[in-house]
C-alpha cells in the first residue's frame, strides 16, 4: 500500500448499479468503491461494461437502478455537469477534446474565467489572458509539454491531445478522476508520463479509477483491481495479493468468485 491509512476513506461508493440497453444488460448489480489516495483498476474484456460504468458515474448515462454515494452522502448524477460540480472528472476513450478550439480553450471548456464583473460574467466575456497563464501553470505543474497553447487541437499529435485531456481532468478533478484507457495509442515515453500523472494525482489524495487492458500498468500504479465480466463484477482484489496471470484469468472468465 502506498499512502497513509488516513487517506483510505471512500470517495465514491456505488452499489446495486444496473444498466441495460434494450436487450443487452450492460451492468448487472455492480458494487464498488473508490478511495482517496488510491488507484483502482477497472478491468474486463471488450464489452464487459467498463465504459458503461464510467459513463454512469460521470453522468453521461443514467443507471436503471443503484445507489451512488460521494463522501458518504447519497447523490444522483443526472448529467456530466453535475458530476463535474461534485469533483468528478473523466477522460473518456474519445478524449472529448474539441478540435477547432485551442489548448487553453479545451482546458477551460465550460470552466471559463470571465472578466468585466457581473455584466461580463452574465455575458460570458472570456478572460483569455488569465486562462492562458493558468493553463501554463497547470501544464507546467503536470510537466505536460505542448508546443503552443494557441495551437488548435487538430494540429496536435495523438499523445499531445491525450495529455491535454488528462491535464484537464487532473486540473479540475479535486476528488475523483476517471480515466478510460488514457494511455491507449501512446508511445512508450508518453505512456510512462501518463503513469507519472496518475501517481501524482494519487499522491495529491485524489481517488483514481483507471480502465486499461495493460496488466503491467495495473501492477505498476494500481492498488486495487475490480474485474467486470458480462456486466457483473467477478473480482475485487488487492493488486499486491494477485499475479498478472490471476488478473488475466478473471478477465477471460477462467477464474471467478474472488470478492472480498
Amino acid at each position, binding site marked *: 500500500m502506498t499512502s497513509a491509512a488516513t487517506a483510505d476513506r471512500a470517495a465514491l461508493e456505488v452499489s446495486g448499479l444496473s444498466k441495460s440497453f434494450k436487450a443487452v444488460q450492460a451492468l448487472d448489480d455492480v458494487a464498488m468503491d473508490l478511495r482517496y489516495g488510491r488507484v483502482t483498476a477497472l478491468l474486463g474484456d471488450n464489452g464487459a461494461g467498463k465504459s458503461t460504468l464510467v459513463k454512469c458515474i460521470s453522468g*453521461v448515462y443514467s443507471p436503471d437502478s443503484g445507489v451512488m454515494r460521494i463522501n458518504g452522502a447519497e447523490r444522483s448524477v443526472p448529467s456530466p455537469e453535475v458530476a463535474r460540480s461534485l469533483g468528478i472528472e473523466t477522460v473518456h476513450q474519445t478524449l472529448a477534446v474539441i478540435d477547432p478550439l485551442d489548448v487553453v480553450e479545451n482546458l477551460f471548456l465550460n470552466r471559463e474565467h470571465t472578466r468585466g464583473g457581473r455584466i461580463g460574467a452574465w455575458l460570458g466575456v472570456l478572460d483569455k489572458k488569465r486562462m492562458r497563464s493558468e493553463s501554463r501553470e497547470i501544464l507546467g505543474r503536470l510537466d505536460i509539454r505542448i508546443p*503552443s497553447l494557441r495551437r488548435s487541437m487538430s494540429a496536435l499529435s495523438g499523445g499531445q491531445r491525450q495529455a491535454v485531456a488528462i491535464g484537464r481532468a487532473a486540473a479540475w478533478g479535486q476528488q475523483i478522476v476517471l480515466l478510460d484507457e488514457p494511455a491507449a495509442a501512446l508511445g512508450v515515453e508518453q505512456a510512462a508520463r501518463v503513469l507519472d500523472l496518475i501517481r501524482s494525482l494519487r499522491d495529491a489524495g485524489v481517488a483514481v479509477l483507471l480502465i486499461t487492458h495493460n496488466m503491467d500498468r495495473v501492477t505498476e500504479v494500481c492498488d486495487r483491481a475490480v474485474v467486470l465480466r458480462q456486466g457483473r463484477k467477478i473480482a475485487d482484489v488487492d493488486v499486491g495479493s494477485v499475479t498478472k496471470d490471476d488478473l488475466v484469468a478473471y478477465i477471460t472468465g477462467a477464474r471467478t468468485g474472488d470478492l472480498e
Partner: protein
Amino acid sequence: MTGDIAAGGPLPAAARQWLARRRQDAGLRPYVVYIAAALIFGLFAVILRDDGFLTASNLLNIGRQAAPIAVMAVGMTFALASAEIDLSVGSVTALSSLVAAEMVGDYGFAAGAAAALAVGAVIGLVNGVITVKVRIPSFLVTLGMLGIVSGIARNMNNLQSLPIRNDAFLAVFGAGSLGPVSSLLIWTVVVGLAGHLVLHQLRWGRHVLSVGADRSAAAALGINTARIRITALMTSAAAASFAGVLLAGRLAIGRHDLGENLLLTVIAAVVIGGTNLFGGRASVAGAVVGSVVMAMLNNGLILMGLRVADQLIARGVIIILAVALSMREQKEA
C-alpha cells in the same frame, strides 16, 4: 513551467509562428474569400468598365444589396457553426418586413423593429425546440417552417405590400445616412462586428463551435448542448428578422416576398466565407465578405444584360461551383 511552451518572442519569430500555425490549423482557407472578392471585383472592373460597374452609385448599390445578405449570413454562421442549418431564414425575413410595416405605423419605429426581431426569435425558438426535443434534423424542421412562415406572410396582407411612412424608421433602417455613410452599411458593420466578438470573445460563441464540432464531447464536458443548439437557431432567425427590417427600411414597404429568395445566396456567402457547412468551423468576417461577393456577382450579372431567367441559371451554377470549391478546400485543410 516547461521550456517547450512558446512564449511571445521577438516579432519575426512571432510572425513565423503565426504563419506556421495558420498552415497547420486551417491552411490558407480563411483567406480564400478575400482573394475571391478581389478577383471578382477586378474582373468586373475590367469587363464591365463601360457598363458602369465602377461608378459610385453602382458600388453603393452593391453595398445596399449586400447589407441584408450579410446580416442574414452572420446569423446563419452561428446556425452552421452549431452543426444545424436554418432554411426558414428567407421566409422569416419576409414576414418580419410585414410585421415591422404593420407595427411601425401605430407604435413608432423602435416598436416596429422590436416586434420584427421578436417574431424571428420566437420562430427560431420553435425551430430549435422541435429540432432538439423531437429529434428531427434542423434542415427538415426549418424546411417545414419555411412553408409555414411563407404561408402566414401571404395571408397577412393578402399579397399586398404594406407601405411604411414613418420617416424615422426609413432613416434609421434604410435610406438614411450618417454623414456620407449609408445607415445600411453602418448596420452591416455593427452586426458583423458584434457577431465576430460573440464568436471569439464570449463563452457562448466558443460553446456553439464546440457543440458543432463534437456534440457528444461537448455534452460530456457538461455543456448544455440543447440550449446551445436552440439559441444558435434563434440567432439565425433573429438575424433574418433584422434583415427584414433593413429591407423594409430600404424599400419603404413590407411585403410577403421580401428576401424570400435569399436563402441560397446566404448559405453560399457563409460557406464561401470559410464556415463549414457541417459545423465546427466558422468565420463571421468571412460571411460578411462572402455576402459582398454574392452581391457583386448579382450586380455583375445584371450589368452584363442577362435576362432574369439566365441570371437564375448563372447564379445557381456559380453558387454550386463556389461551394464545391470551398468544401474541397475544407476537406484538404
